């Protein structure tokens, strides 16, 4: 957190090293977030690109009210929402979405079978976008409901409801699949 504050301070003063450091630090998390939101790698990459270019342009006026990561995650969510709006119904077939290779060696990854992973992935893709956005930002992006609410301009109750409905919907989708 403190390091981020120092980096932002340096960025405001034109440090290219600070910019590179921030990019290196958060690029993978943000790209993964964008992919989870958009289900389209091309849109996700565009979002990451646009967010960083805009971040640099407005860095001079930047006033962080949350962590840098939360701030960038909110920017990604907003950008993906706009790009998705521009390319309505452009959800890629599931076969083209980002999937996990078979060579995962992280124990937490091994704890989930490829089959289960795919089922959850399909269920996530079926969620209404506002619910998926809240789920992804909270669970994957680690953002607090309050911060999500601020970034989306809605009340915290709305965000919590979307999260709850999202989980319920996922639960029912997974159960339906299991019963087939």
């Amino acid at each position, binding site marked *: *957190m*403190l*390091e981020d*504050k120092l980096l932002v301070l*340096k960025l405001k*003063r*034109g*440090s*290219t*090293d*600070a*910019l590179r*450091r921030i*990019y*290196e630090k958060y690029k*993978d*998390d943000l*790209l*993964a977030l964008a992919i*989870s939101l958009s289900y389209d790698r091309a849109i996700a990459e565009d979002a*990451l*690109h646009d967010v*960083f*270019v805009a*971040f*640099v*342009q407005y*860095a*001079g*006026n*930047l*006033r*962080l*009210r*949350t*962590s840098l990561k939360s701030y960038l995650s909110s920017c990604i969510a907003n950008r993906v929402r706009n790009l998705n709006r521009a390319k309505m119904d452009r959800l890629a077939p599931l076969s083209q979405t*980002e*999937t*996990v290779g078979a060579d*995962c060696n*992280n124990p*937490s*990854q091994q*704890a*989930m079978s490829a089959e289960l992973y795919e089922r*959850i*992935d399909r269920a*996530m893709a079926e969620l209404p976008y506002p619910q998926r956005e809240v*789920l*992804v930002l909270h*669970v*994957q992006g680690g953002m607090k409901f*309050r*911060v999500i609410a601020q970034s989306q301009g809605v009340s915290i109750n709305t965000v919590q409801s979307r999260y709850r409905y999202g*989980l319920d919907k*996922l*639960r029912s989708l*997974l*159960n339906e699949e*299991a019963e087939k």
Partner: protein
Amino acid sequence: MKHTENIEKLIKLFCVRKRSAVKTTAELDERIIRNTVLAQKTTKTEPLAAMRPGLWRMIMRNRMTKYVAAAVIVFVMIIGIVEFGKPIGASTAFAAAMDNIRKARTFSCIEMFEVSYEDNDKSGTYLMEQKWMFREPDLKRHEKLTSPWPQYVGEVTICNYGTRQELSFRPAEKTARLRDMVYDYTIDRKTGELKQTQLNTRLRDRILEWSAGAVEDCGNVKLNGQTVRKLQSRHDNRTTTVWIDPQTNYPIQVEHTWTDESRSPVMITAIQIDVELNYKLFSLEAPDDYTLSVDEPGWPDDKRKLMTKVMHLGLMCVIYAGNNDNRFPGELADLVTSGVITEEALKRVLASPNDPDGPPVFRYCKPDSSADWPTEVTLYEIYDEWPEDGVVTCFMDGHSELITDQNRFEELIK
């Protein structure tokens, strides 16, 4: 198989797996870096400024902080220090009056500015209000008038540098804590000498400097029903407005605003200079109905001295890095060649507290600028055999720890 249970856990696992599988490509990295650097170059930025000694407070707080908010608060104060530290052109006559005030023995004011805060369950911004009082040569009182956390509202801290004791009490909890300040040390920046902390009158001195520099007369205005004289000065990106009591010529309120509107204004109000402050305000006796606890000194005195020294060195390294695009010095002598510290001062800080002219007692390891600042070791106490009470260690972000677990220490310096 049903997933009616632990769906949240399942989704978390799914997200962890998904996140770890995604990586940017080299082409994407190159495109984004190229375009962002280009955008950066075409965007007006502030000139790179050296980090100022005010970072000390930030580093100090960071070591002890349990709440990220504390670091943010200190950060805001540093911005003020960095900006305010520059000399302001002075009106000679007014400066002379201010010089007289400098001899004042008492001072009090309320300082206000907006800060952001965040901890595990809440975050946002709030107007921080704090009251400062001191009575020279050795009494200080600080009152926290606002806080996002109810237990801290109204917290009072009283320091007596003569008896070297500190009392703090929280009205919200009816608790009080007495602490011995015998082991509170600081380093003289010019000489590198280790000495005990003493009353700091910097806030008053700065107010006087700002007041002396405000020479644009805006005429008489009303402030809280009183007719006062309003003066202003503009300097770089800051405007300082000073309200002066025409009877005494003392400043009673100072405000700083910035051309960058996203930066919070700083207001210092209810300024009282050389007004009688009752000794009771600085009493080290806890209020009657409060539960008093006494803090034990904890670490041995020699370790506290070493910690003060190593944190000073850590701070110098951070300042160096601030001037050199995050690159830390190759060796400590680079601090001297870059003008961050004098050779004499460095030698003295590196030496044992018991042998100021002796050999260095700390070893420096140059960290990589991309390392994790709070966990990367930069300096540690040299030892032959593992000391029973641990080794003083300083990290890249300038905080310091007394590490008693040898395995952990060895892991850290690998």
